[in-house]
């Protein structure tokens, strides 16, 4: 039995272990833990690793469907894309580290999510992200944005995986707690998928990749606590990334996977060696012996505590078939990677660590993994708010209003950001951030198939009504994929919230999850992977509830895909869907009236589904040449985007019998602008007639100005200028 030592209540508290949780440890061990054992419980029971506050609610997500090969619970989700091919993807946050050290925090976020994907046998083919910063006036915003963008680019560009899409937003609630959510999408063969389950008794455990250093110790615990004024002092817990090593690791891992020697494999992510070994053993009810003296280390005199809790990057752990170690060793030598057999699996169900001839840790694995604590935390429902009618916004100069929205930080062009990302490496990018498409399109290498990828969240809706806001995020993701002609298949989610121990915050979490789950169910758009990031608070100030969705769709032949550009004089513009007089929680309400209240747009999910089906069939029949769903800024910004993408004007009517302010700026859901060539009018009308959906001819492309009835006339060049100038001027 390992030597125990007297742990003070302060030490226990510093490890984020609550008194009642410590009592559970005492009960499960039948003795007091030593510091190393406490450290292991601490990281495995952190919110980040255990999902202890969210697990009972996450189970509400639909996670299966005809295309789902692997849902949540593995390193990433896996969907079937036909022809023996699978798409593997996941999104994950790196919020706290990125606030403390933006370049490395963001870079290692990208590295970590890539490892989750290639660990399962997929070659990463695309990266996406959703990043959120404080208000532009905040003294840190510019520095954090520059650092995060540089870090995302620095890592992805070097590894050689294109960063194809993302969203960049600003709000004062992120002043002290930025969000960096990175998504990776990979491709594998369906018969060559690797899991963290599948280990057998008596198999060797091999370590390969970078050496273990002292960086990132207690990263998972840090990610599970509020920030306070001393947070900047936590810099040593931020890991340092080495994208060149990641590139070698991808090639070496995929080469190893071509052999037949792996039983189970997992990357060392949050909680490093601890979580990777414990999770692989826990999934099969096995035990593990690790010889800590054999762990490749970067620094001298490292203790087992440091080795087990280190979050050094670019490391993998695999359980091999006995006797096959030499195969792995030869591959790692080719790629100049560290390699060591550091232990073996047992039938004891216990994690045993040996160091300098002694047993320094001996604890049961069950309570660390499958059997970790979970809480049904108290929560209160977010009170509903009334709609905001157009009349409340008063008289508006509509032309100036459109320019103001186009130039506001959330809508302004993010060219300054995405020009720092390599979007084209791998030579399969068909549409990335620089192209007018609602989702990025990445060809499945060597085929005519393409994946559609999008990241979405509208936090201001979720704040005012978590349930409707949750539905809306999934619906918008779905529409963005529909607009390209692809079929939405599944999502990954990244749920960013404040402190779940506050019932109001927990109410946001529960409401958003239930709304998202309902939308996933009705739209048949299941969740296959995800990540939860809680405690996004600084000095008691929580972030806006920000459950980000990363959606993936598939188009069978990319030649049939469309965007919202390529419009020429004479093309006809139609609006599908009905507009209602509610400006609650809209962009216009915020930017024009400085108000953020009101009921967000309601989402009629069956209507979304019917409308999407119509749009899909119109694209498949090649009836329409451009398509764009209406979201932030409504009809007016939708038309402005069409004009800017084709550098053309549109002469348009107002859509409905609603007040002009609502007609222009309401964010009513289930609406699309579609553009057809006049030659196609008859076929288009015939195709739409059967649908029973509301369709209105809005106008035609002509000239160089966006003209909407008699309410506004703006030159497309003035709109582009407003839209393009804000960010470069802000960044200087």
């Amino acid at each position: 039995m390992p030597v125990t030592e007297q742990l003070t209540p302060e030490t226990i508290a510093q490890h984020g272990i609550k008194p009642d949780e410590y009592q559970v440890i005492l009960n499960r061990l039948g003795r007091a833990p030593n510091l190393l054992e406490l450290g292991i419980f601490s990281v495995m029971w952190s919110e980040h690793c255990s999902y202890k506050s969210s697990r009972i609610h996450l189970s509400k997500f639909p996670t299966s469907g005809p295309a789902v090969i692997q849902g949540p619970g593995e390193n990433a989700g896996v969907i079937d894309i036909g022809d023996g091919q699978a798409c593997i993807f996941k999104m994950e946050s790196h919020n706290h580290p990125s606030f403390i050290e933006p370049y490395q925090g963001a870079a290692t976020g990208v590295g970590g999510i890539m490892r989750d994907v290639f660990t399962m046998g997929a070659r990463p083919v695309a990266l996406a992200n959703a990043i959120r910063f404080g208000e532009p006036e905040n003294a840190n915003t510019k520095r954090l944005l520059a650092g995060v963008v540089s870090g995302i680019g620095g890592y992805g560009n070097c590894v050689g995986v294109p960063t194809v899409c993302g969203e960049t937003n600003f709000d004062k609630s992120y002043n002290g707690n930025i969000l960096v959510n990175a998504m990776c999408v990979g491709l594998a063969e369906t018969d060559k998928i690797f899991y963290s389950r599948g280990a057998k008794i008596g198999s060797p455990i091999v370590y390969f990749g970078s050496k273990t250093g002292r960086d990132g110790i207690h990263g998972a615990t840090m990610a599970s606590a509020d920030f306070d004024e001393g947070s900047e002092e936590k810099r040593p817990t931020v890991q340092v990334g080495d994208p060149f090593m990641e590139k070698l690791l991808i090639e070496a891992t995929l080469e190893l996977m071509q052999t037949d020697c792996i039983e189970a494999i997992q990357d060392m992510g949050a909680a490093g060696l601890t979580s990777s070994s414990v999770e692989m053993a826990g999934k099969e009810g096995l035990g593990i012996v690790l010889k800590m003296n054999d762990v490749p280390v970067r620094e001298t005199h490292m203790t087992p505590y440091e080795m087990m809790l280190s979050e050094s990057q670019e490391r993998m752990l695999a359980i091999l078939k006995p006797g096959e170690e030499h195969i792995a060793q030869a591959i790692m030598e080719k790629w100049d990677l560290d390699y060591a057999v550091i232990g073996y699996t047992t039938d004891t169900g216990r994690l045993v660590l040996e160091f300098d001839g002694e047993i320094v840790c001996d604890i049961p694995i069950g309570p660390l993994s499958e059997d970790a604590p979970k809480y049904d935390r108290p929560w209160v429902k977010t009170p509903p708010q009334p709609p905001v009618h157009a009349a409340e916004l008063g008289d508006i100069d509509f032309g100036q209003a459109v320019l103001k929205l186009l130039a506001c930080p959330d809508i302004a062009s993010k060219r300054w950001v995405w020009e720092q990302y390599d979007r084209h490496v791998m030579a399969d990018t068909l549409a990335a951030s620089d192209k007018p498409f609602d989702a990025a399109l990445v060809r499945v290498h060597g085929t005519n198939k393409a994946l559609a990828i999008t990241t979405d969240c509208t936090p201001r809706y979720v704040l005012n009504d978590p349930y409707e806001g949750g539905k809306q995020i999934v619906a918008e993701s779905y529409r963005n994929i529909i607009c390209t002609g692809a079929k939405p298949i599944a999502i990954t989610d990244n749920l960013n919230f404040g402190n779940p121990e506050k019932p109001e915050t927990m109410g946001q979490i529960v409401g958003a999850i239930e709304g998202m789950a309902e939308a996933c169910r009705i739209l048949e758009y299941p969740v296959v992977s995800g990540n939860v990031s809680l405690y996004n608070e600084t000095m008691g100030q929580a972030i806006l509830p920000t459950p980000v969705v990363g959606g993936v769709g598939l188009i069978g032949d990319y030649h049939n895909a469309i965007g919202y550009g390529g419009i020429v004089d004479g093309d006809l513009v139609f609006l599908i869907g009905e507009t209602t007089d509610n400006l609650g929680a809209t962009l216009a309400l915020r930017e024009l009236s400085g108000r953020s209240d009101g009921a967000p747009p309601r989402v009629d999910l069956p209507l979304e589904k019917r409308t999407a089906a119509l749009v899909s069939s119109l694209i498949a029949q090649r009836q329409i040449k451009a398509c764009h769903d209406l979201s932030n800024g409504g009809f007016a910004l939708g038309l402005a985007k069409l004009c800017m993408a084709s550098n053309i004007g549109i002469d348009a009517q107002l859509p409905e019998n609603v007040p002009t302010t609502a007609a222009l700026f309401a964010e009513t859901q289930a609406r699309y602008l579609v553009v057809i060539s006049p030659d196609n009018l008859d076929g288009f009308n015939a195709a739409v007639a059967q649908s029973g959906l509301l369709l209105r001819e809005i106008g035609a492309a002509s000239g160089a100005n966006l003209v909407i009835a008699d309410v506004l006339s703006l030159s497309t060049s003035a709109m582009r200028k407003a839209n393009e100038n804000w960010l470069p001027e802000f960044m200087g």
Partner: protein
Amino acid sequence: MPWHMKSAVIVYPGSNCDRDCKIAIETSIGAEVAMIWHKETKLSDELDLIVLPGGFAHGDYLRCGAMAALSPINAEIMRHAKRGTPILGICNGFQVLCENGLLEGTLLRNASLKYVCKDVDLDVVNTDTIFTTAYKDHEIATMTVGNGEGNYFADAEVLARLEGENRVAFKYRNNPNGSMHDIAGIINKQGNVMGLMPHPDRAFAKELGSDDGALIFQSLVG
């Protein structure tokens, strides 16, 4: 026309455009492409083209391409350069060619101090090189750049020589990185080695946004 043209793409451990180069060559001219690991010490004498691809050859935490110029395969690249085999270095490959001395000048950090990925229009300044004859009726080419160190620098004497000997092959119409004289691609004196910062290996088919890069490979087969 040597339809059976044989080519090789050198694979450094941090190359990330090696596959792109292979597909670009295959798609553009149907040539056979061998992928050659940088630790190899022999390149076939039969080669008609050697490509040094983009990427971060050895991580490039030191000067870009400096370590690649010391890779075991480099001696063979030098031997082939001398015997006249066409050698094309793209992006990181261009940096390697400056480091191993086959091309003059160097590539500095971009003037913006930021990585830049964007479409660029190029003037094909010299259509008489073995890499550019197919541009004779096509004197503007569109490709993309993706680099952090693409800012071509050389002293006045070298620049005068490059211009005087008509060895600047491509120039940017809107310089994305601060390169002197808007230089995007140059040729060695012998005329068989070209370094090019934009990526023909990402511009060889319409669906990628441009197929203008294919003409480089097509030039080589006449």
